[in-house]
């Protein structure tokens, strides 16, 4: 079968060291098999690993940064504005990816390519500019030290166009902080696994795009009919309006009520003053506008302004749940204006808010417990809710000043320096855990432990379902739902669309089978698509195993095993290590991996075809 739509069948390869730019054709077999987004990224990263005998320094010129939207990115269907970034992660040393919404991926596709691969290192700080006519690397050393937002403005001025879309890094990325993010559209971020750091290591300040090409759609009328059905379904959903008004901020109330909200570095899982930082407070006092990714009717993004007090004038795109939880309750902050200010600071510096919140919280607890001395903290005390000290510490991390230099190395560096910190940092494989407390749900703990990028909820988010209906689930059911999520959720990233219409508004996954087939002219069933997604999961596992990962890395953070939340509905709960290990063994069995989590050797050959 040849693909009749969905792709330009072209990719752009850039080598910053040599200044070489090359457009290459992409074979149908590659496009069909890896679909897009993280699928493309995983395959290219795998090939690059093989070329380098599986020895890649995440900050070395040899690390490949793959930027890939998917065949559905930018297409008329709900929430099609997603784009993936893929590389070997500086946070984990393993496979890493992160996606962002907004309009960046759409613009990339409109330049007429399906993927961008960036290798090498530029001699000086540069911007990669791509339009329909080709690409060029423009040195702009004057951008050094500029924030993500400033840089975006300056580059637009320099290029003389206000309609270019771009992804930038901030000071954190330039300074190669282990958890720097990539930022686009004034505040959309590909936050996790330190991919901004990879850009920084390549001396690449920004990727700027301007495209105007038609996106290839095989069956337009079929697509419009399907998309209108899906849009109609979403608008009828009882929570639709609430999503438009609050976006992910509505999760604060839910998380507090169900006892999964991180408070005081996960010492607790409820926050007494949650109403001061929840969605209603945001709506009543801070929200000044809505913000949507491309083609998304839910517009879950918020734009907030602080109208009075010491943070007056702070404008920020956001926050959403993770940012608010990690920079609010998790740090003991109950002032929403301070949360906004911290979020804005992270956006400017180009720091992932989840990792930043997690590490700052661990520092506060480490100091409280005496693991860190006042001298370790350069003489500046830091306690729960002390917003001035917290903002100062965030700044020091991005600029690598004093203790910030160690913290900037991420969890692994912190634990190397102060081994006792392992007891207070919640991380798996070196990636700090997201803002859903897995002590309430063993399937969620398994999801974090087995996620290919570390403790992030993007691959599987089973916590809500387990809490609602999973109290009597068998081991089989618990493992089954994690594996199902790990097949389905990455498929959204491969398509280049957002998963929220599915997970939050109940849009049936079969819609996506039809979207895919209308756009590409293919005839794959959802099950076949899920198998392709599962293959990519096998592939990232293989890559991780070859990079030295094994069963002991599919682990639980110390706190999740040992320290129960103090109060709330889940007070006293921890994840029993024996139960967890039993589930993990079953998980490996069901995936067809051996008991050390290693996929069969024969599997590797499956992925050695040429792009």
């Amino acid at each position, binding site marked *: 079968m040849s693909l009749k739509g969905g792709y330009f069948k072209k990719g752009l390869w850039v080598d910053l060291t040599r200044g070489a730019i090359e457009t290459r054709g992409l074979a149908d077999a590659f496009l069909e098999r890896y679909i897009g987004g993280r699928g493309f990224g995983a395959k290219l990263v795998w090939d690059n690993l093989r070329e380098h005998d599986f020895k890649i320094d995440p900050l070395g010129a040899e690390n490949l940064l793959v930027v890939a939207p998917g065949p559905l990115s930018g297409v008329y269907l709900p929430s099609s504005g997603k784009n993936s970034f893929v590389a070997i992660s500086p946070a984990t040393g393993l496979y890493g990816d992160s996606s962002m919404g907004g309009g960046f991926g759409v613009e990339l596709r409109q330049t007429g390519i399906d993927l961008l691969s960036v290798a090498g290192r530029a001699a000086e700080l540069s911007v990669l500019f791509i339009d329909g006519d080709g690409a060029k690397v423009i040195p702009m050393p004057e951008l050094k030290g500029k924030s993500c937002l400033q840089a975006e403005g300056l580059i637009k001025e320099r290029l003389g166009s206000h309609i270019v879309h771009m992804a930038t890094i901030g000071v954190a990325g330039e300074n190669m902080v282990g958890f720097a993010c990539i930022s686009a559209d004034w505040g959309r971020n590909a936050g996790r696994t330190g991919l901004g750091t990879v850009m920084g290591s390549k001396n690449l300040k920004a990727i700027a795009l301007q495209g105007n090409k038609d996106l290839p759609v095989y069956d337009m009328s079929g697509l419009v009919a399907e998309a209108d059905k899906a849009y109609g379904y979403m608008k009828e959903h009882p929570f639709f309006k609430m999503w438009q008004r609050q976006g992910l901020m509505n999760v604060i109330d839910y998380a507090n009520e169900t006892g999964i909200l991180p408070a005081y570095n996960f010492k607790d899982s409820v926050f007494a003053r949650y109403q001061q930082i929840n969605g209603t407070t945001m709506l009543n006092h801070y929200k000044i*506008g809505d913000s949507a990714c491309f*083609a998304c009717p839910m517009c879950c993004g918020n734009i907030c302004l602080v109208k009075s007090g010491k943070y007056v004038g702070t*404008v920020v795109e956001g926050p959403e749940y993770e940012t608010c939880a990690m920079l609010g309750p998790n740090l003991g902050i109950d002032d929403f204006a301070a949360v906004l200010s911290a979020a804005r600071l992270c956006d400017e510096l180009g720091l992932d808010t989840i990792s930043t919140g997690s590490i700052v919280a661990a520092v506060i607890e480490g100091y409280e417990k005496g693991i860190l001395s006042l001298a370790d903290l350069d003489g500046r005390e830091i306690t729960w809710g002390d917003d001035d000290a917290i903002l100062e510490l965030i700044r020091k991390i991005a600029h690598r000043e004093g203790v910030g230099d160690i913290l900037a190395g991420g969890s692994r560096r912190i634990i190397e320096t102060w081994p006792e910190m392992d007891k207070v940092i919640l991380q798996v494989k070196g990636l700090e855990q997201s803002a859903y407390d897995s002590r309430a749900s063993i399937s969620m703990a398994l999801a974090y432990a087995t996620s290919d990028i570390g403790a992030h909820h993007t691959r599987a988010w089973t916590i809500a379902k387990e809490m609602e209906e999973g109290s009597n689930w068998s081991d089989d059911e618990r493992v089954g739902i994690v594996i199902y999520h790990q097949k389905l959720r990455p498929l959204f990233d491969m398509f280049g669309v957002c998963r929220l219409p599915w997970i939050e508004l109940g849009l049936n996954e079969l819609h996506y089978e039809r979207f895919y087939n209308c756009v590409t002219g293919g005839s794959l069933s959802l099950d076949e698509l899920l198998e392709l997604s599962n293959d990519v999961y096998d592939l990232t596992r293989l890559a991780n195993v070859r990079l030295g990962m094994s069963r002991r890395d599919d682990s639980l953070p110390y706190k999740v095993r040992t320290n129960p939340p103090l109060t709330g509905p889940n007070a006293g709960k921890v994840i029993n290590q024996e139960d967890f290990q039993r589930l993990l063994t079953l998980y490996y069995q069901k995936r067809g991996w051996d008991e050390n989590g290693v996929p069969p050797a024969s599997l590797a050959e499956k992925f050695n075809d040429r792009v």
Partner: protein
Amino acid sequence: MPLKLTVIPEQCCGCRICELVCAIEHFGVNNPKKSAVRVLNIYPHPVIRMPVVCSQCRVPLCAQVCPTDALRWVEGVVQLEPSECIACYKCAESCPFGAIYVHEDCELPIKCDMCGGDPQCVKKCPTGALRLLPEAALGESKRLDNILSYTAMKEIELYEEGEKKVIRYAEVGKEEL
């Protein structure tokens, strides 16, 4: 009564569904850059997401500068006669709102034709930022706001389930002291 396509920028979330449906309706292609409506994002201070769309002016500057009279105001819509257009794009340059667009694939300028009276962008806008209103209703909200500033009406703000509400009232029956 002629209907007018109007924009309420405060309600626009910047999703650009309007751009997509316009291009699909008129060109049959999935390309937001071939749309007669564009959402401009300007950030920061103040945050603006502004759909820019033709106002179908009664005294259309685009038609005045058109050297071949290819643009004419007919029944509430400034219509482009393709056979007379020489693709000089003077119209695009002269429009005070910048609401006429040019794309390298298209010879003719891209200009809103109101979809024959049933604009797709209005139909598909998820937030109600694009609306079709009778001409007589234009300015209604401004009139209301303005009146409040010079009448004795008082105003209180309150929140109900997170939604901001305003109650306006006149203080009556109060004795002058």
